[in-house]
C-alpha cells in the first residue's frame, strides 16, 4: 500500500508509545500518533493536553489544542497551573511530543526565533509548554520532516532542552526527564548515543543513510546496527485514513 511521508512518521511514532503511557499531546501529527497507538497496541494510553484535559476521547480531529471536543467526555479537567505543576513538574507525564523549526545534534529545539533574539529574521511562536515538557516528561519524541535547514549543528535559540551540549548536562541541571529519545522523520529514526548526540538508528524502507546525511546539518554518525523500519501496515493506514483523519488534513 502507498503512504505519504506524514503517514510514515505518524505510524513510526505511534509504535514508540507503550500501553499505559501518559502522553502530553500536541495537536496535529502527535495527536494522530497517539490515537493510532490507542487503537492498536496501546489501548490504555492516556492523553493529557496542556490546556488541562486528562483522558480526552475526542469525537473529531481537533484543530486546536484547546478544542471543546477534547473536554466533553474526558475524565478530568484542571487549570493550566495544575497541569504544569501537579502533572508535568511532579513527574506524572511519561511521554511528550515536541517539534520546532530547528533541532540540533543534541536534540535541542528552537521554536522561538531564526536569527538573533533581539532582531529576529523569523519570529516563531515560542515555547508554549514545550520548555517544560522537554525538561520533565520522562521521555520525549520529536517528529519532523527531514530537511537540512531543520537540522543545524546548533540551534539559533534553545527553546527546549535536549542534551544541551552533551550527555550529563541534563543531570547537572537536575532535570527530571530522560530527554528526547528519538527523532522520527520521513527518512528514518535518530536516537541519542551515550554522549547525547543523535545518530541514525533506523531507516525507513528503501531509504539510504546518504539521504539522511544530505538532509542533516551536522556530520551524522550511524549506529553500529541500523534497522529498517517495518512499512506502515494496512490496518494502521486504514485507521488513520478512515477513522482519525477522514478529511486527509494531515495526509
Amino acid at each position, binding site marked *: 500500500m502507498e503512504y505519504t511521508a506524514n503517514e510514515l512518521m505518524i505510524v513510526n511514532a505511534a509504535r514508540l508509545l507503550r500501553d499505559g503511557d501518559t502522553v502530553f499531546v500536541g495537536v496535529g501529527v502527535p495527536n494522530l500518533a497517539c490515537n493510532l497507538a490507542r487503537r492498536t497496541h496501546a489501548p490504555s494510553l492516556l492523553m493529557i493536553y496542556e490546556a488541562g484535559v486528562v483522558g480526552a476521547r475526542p469525537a473529531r480531529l481537533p484543530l486546536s*489544542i*484547546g478544542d471543546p471536543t477534547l473536554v466533553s467526555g474526558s475524565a478530568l479537567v484542571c*487549570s493550566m*497551573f495544575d497541569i504544569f505543576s501537579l502533572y508535568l513538574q511532579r513527574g506524572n507525564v511519561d511521554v511528550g511530543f515536541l517539534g520546532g523549526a530547528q533541532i540540533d545534534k543534541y536534540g535541542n529545539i528552537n521554536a522561538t526565533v531564526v536569527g538573533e533574539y533581539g532582531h529576529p529574521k523569523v519570529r516563531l511562536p*515560542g515555547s508554549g509548554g514545550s520548555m517544560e515538557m522537554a525538561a520533565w516528561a520522562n521521555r520525549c519524541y520529536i517528529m519532523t520532516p527531514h530537511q537540512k535547514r531543520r537540522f543545524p549543528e546548533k540551534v539559533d*535559540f534553545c527553546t527546549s532542552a535536549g542534551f544541551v551540549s552533551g550527555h550529563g548536562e541534563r543531570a547537572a541541571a*537536575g*532535570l527530571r526527564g530522560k530527554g528526547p529519545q528519538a527523532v522520527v522523520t520521513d527518512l528514518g529514526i535518530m536516537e541519542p548515543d551515550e554522549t547525547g548526540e543523535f545518530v541514525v538508528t533506523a531507516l525507513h524502507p528503501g531509504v539510504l543513510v546518504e539521504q539522511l546525511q544530505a538532509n542533516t546539518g551536522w556530520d551524522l554518525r550511524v549506529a553500529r546496527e541500523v534497522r529498517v523500519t517495518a512499512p506502515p501496515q494496512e490496518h494502521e493506514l486504514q485507521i488513520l485514513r478512515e477513522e482519525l483523519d477522514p478529511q486527509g488534513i494531515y495526509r
Partner: protein
Amino acid sequence: MTKLMSLHDAIKQYVEDGDCVYAAGFTHLIPFAAGHEIIRQGIKDLTLARATPDLIYDQMVAAGCARKVIFSYIGNPGVGSLRIIRAEVEAGGLEIEEYSHFGMISRLQAGASGLPFIPMNQTGACDLEQSNPNYKRVKDPYGGKDVVVLPPLHPDVAIVHVQRANDEGYAQIWGILGEQKEAAFAARHVIVTAEEIVPDEVIRSDPNRTLIPGFIVDAVCHVPYCSHPSYTQGYYDRDNVMYLAWDKISENPDEVKRYLDEWVYGVADRREYWEKLGKETHDRLKVRPRFSYPVDYGAY
C-alpha cells in the same frame, strides 16, 4: 449589590490608555467582544498580556491599541503564525516580554497569591531565561538545585469570560479553565463577561463550581457569544473557519482594515456582530446538549 453594566461602560470605566490588560482564556472563553470594544473606544498604549495572544491580540495590535505584548505562545493555534504581531516584532515596532506557559501562569499565580515570586524547577533551556531579566535564580536552602523564579504579574485589568455569573460577579466556569481564576485574583480590576446572568440560587446550588468571588469583581456584563470565534463550552462551537480565514486576511493590510471596519468599527456591540454573522454561521456553531449528572449537596 449588583455590578451589572454594559460592556461599553465597563471598558470605559476600567480600561485606560497605558494599562496592562489580561484578557484571559486558554483557547476557550477568549473575550473577543471586550477586545473589539477596546478597539472601538480607541484605547492606546496598552500592554497586552496573555499566554496565547490568539487572534484577539493580533486584531488589537492591528488596530493600534498596543505598545507591548507579554506572552508565552504567539501563534494562531493549529493554523500557524499571528502575522500582524509577528511582522511588528520582526520590524521592531512592538515591545515583547516572553515566557514559557508555566512561567507565564506562574507570574499570575504569584500575583494572585500576593507573593514576591514563585519557584519552578530548572528546564535546561536557558536562552529565554537569559533574554528576559525577570527570570532569576534562587538557591534551594535545603541543598538541592537552584530554582528558577519569576515575580508576580498584576494586570491593571483582567477580563474574564464565563458561562454564568450572578449580578454580584460570582462566576462559574466549566470546560478548559486556563488561567481565568489566577488572572482575576492577580489583577487590580476585574471585568466579568457572562453568557448568562443567573439568579443567585443557581450559583449557590453548586458553590464548588464558582471560581471567582463577587467581591473581587468590578463589573459584570451580560455578553452572549462574547468569545466568538473562540468558544464557550456547552454554548457554541469554536469557529475554526474564522481561525483559518484570519490567516489569509492578516496577510494583507487592506484586508485587515476591511475586516476591522466591517466587524469591529462597523457594529455597535456584540449583539450586532452576532446578528451580522448570520444564520448559516449560527447553525454551524450550534451544539447539542450534553449535561452533567447533578450532585447532591444535601440540605443541612
